[in-house]
């Protein structure tokens, strides 16, 4: 759930999503769900000359299972905090 929460903090930011079919789409992150399905607003195809068929995309829903990478703006991420949170989530549960 950590990365779900993390992506929720990025809503409204510009992101680039690379799909497993090598298409790269940029747009404003509108929403994300627990499967990391993402919804982008105002989508632009990065390689317009290669994929003119995709110019008609405006707002799109991308299934989490086809996402390869999501590129996020560097300035928006506190990597120390994220690493810390990741470490905590993976820490062995204390016996209670």
């Amino acid at each position, binding site marked *: 759930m950590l990365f779900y929460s993390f992506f929720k903090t990025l809503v409204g930011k510009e992101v680039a999503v690379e799909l497993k*079919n090598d298409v790269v789409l940029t747009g404003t992150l509108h929403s994300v769900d*627990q499967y990391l399905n993402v919804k982008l607003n105002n989508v632009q195809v990065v390689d317009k000359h290669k994929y*003119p068929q995709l110019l008609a*995309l405006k707002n*799109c*829903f991308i*299934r989490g299972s086809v996402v390869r990478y999501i590129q996020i703006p560097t300035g928006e991420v506190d990597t120390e905090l994220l690493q810390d949170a990741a470490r905590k989530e993976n820490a062995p549960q204390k016996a209670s």
Partner: protein
Amino acid sequence: MATALKEWKDNEVFVITCDGRYIQGTLAGYDQLQNLVLKEAQERVYQLPKSDDEDTLEMVPLGLYLIRGDNVAIVSDIREGVFEQQANSNFEGFENAEGIHPVVQAKF
């Protein structure tokens, strides 16, 4: 969230499947796995014409169509006028176009 597709219910949408096909239709139904029901679905088949009597775009009518969620890559609404403009300009800029590759789960 299961509501992600709600705003497009009964609207014209455009689906790109995992095998790289484009299917356009009216979104009649969906569920949380992105199984989709499209009304009056049409497949948009693009090709680079080898002779003058071949068209760049062929629309294949599919009727009522159900797409299983596994095979869905992108669901999108349609930016108005783009398809018309591309058709009117005789698909200018499509010479260097490539098909959408199928989704591959892992590449080695």
